[in-house]
């Protein structure tokens, strides 16, 4: 968990070794437009000690499920502007197929189990994003 700008390169280098034939580096960026709504900036909050445990758990899950992989993950919290990197995931593997698969697994797991929350701040409002999913404005009218 970091509070400053993420540079992906050190994460790529952290997973590189002599048997690594393929490295995938995923970066998740703040998008300006989501479903026609313009985001001004995002604010990420985390339950930091638990989030760090869960990120480490995901790395371990991958290294057990796909032998000879190495994984490095970081997630930024605080205020993020358009195009800023929120998350970086680097995975190395002897062969390319696993480098893609394991990397995608990591981002899916992050979105499932890591206690991090995103608030979108728009021109005319703001909302915590996970909760929005549970109570869609158009369907339930609960918000």
């Amino acid at each position, binding site marked *: 968990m970091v509070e400053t700008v993420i540079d992906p390169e050190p994460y790529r280098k952290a997973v590189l070794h002599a048997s690594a034939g393929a490295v995938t580096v995923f970066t*998740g960026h703040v998008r300006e437009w989501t479903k026609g709504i313009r985001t001004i900036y995002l604010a*990420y*909050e*985390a*339950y930091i*000690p*638990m*989030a760090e*445990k869960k990120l480490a758990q995901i790395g371990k899950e991958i290294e057990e499920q796909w032998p000879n992989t190495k994984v490095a993950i970081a*997630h930024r919290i605080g205020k993020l502007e358009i195009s800023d990197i*929120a*998350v970086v995931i680097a995975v190395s593997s002897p062969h390319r197929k696993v480098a893609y698969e394991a990397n995608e697994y990591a*981002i899916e797991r*992050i*979105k*499932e*189990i*890591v*206690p*991090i*929350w*995103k*608030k979108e701040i728009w021109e005319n409002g703001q909302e*915590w*994003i*996970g*909760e929005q*999913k*549970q*109570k869609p404005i158009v369907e339930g009218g*609960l918000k």
Partner: protein
Amino acid sequence: MITVLYFAGLKEKTGLDKEEFIFSGKTVKQLLEELQRKYEGLSDGIIQVAINEEYALPEDIIEEKDIIALIPPVSGG
């Protein structure tokens, strides 16, 4: 005494980052019910609970000095 931590929207609904009170010996489900009576709107969304930084089940027993986190749907990445 136990410590209860609130995050994201739950922080806004309770007006609190965290609070401490006497609760031990009862279940996660009982704690949630108690907090939902105390804070209006807390029951609107799905809430997961962590005890000492690990996800807990509704029937898990909360012990003295446990740190409980109320975890609204996560949205990292």
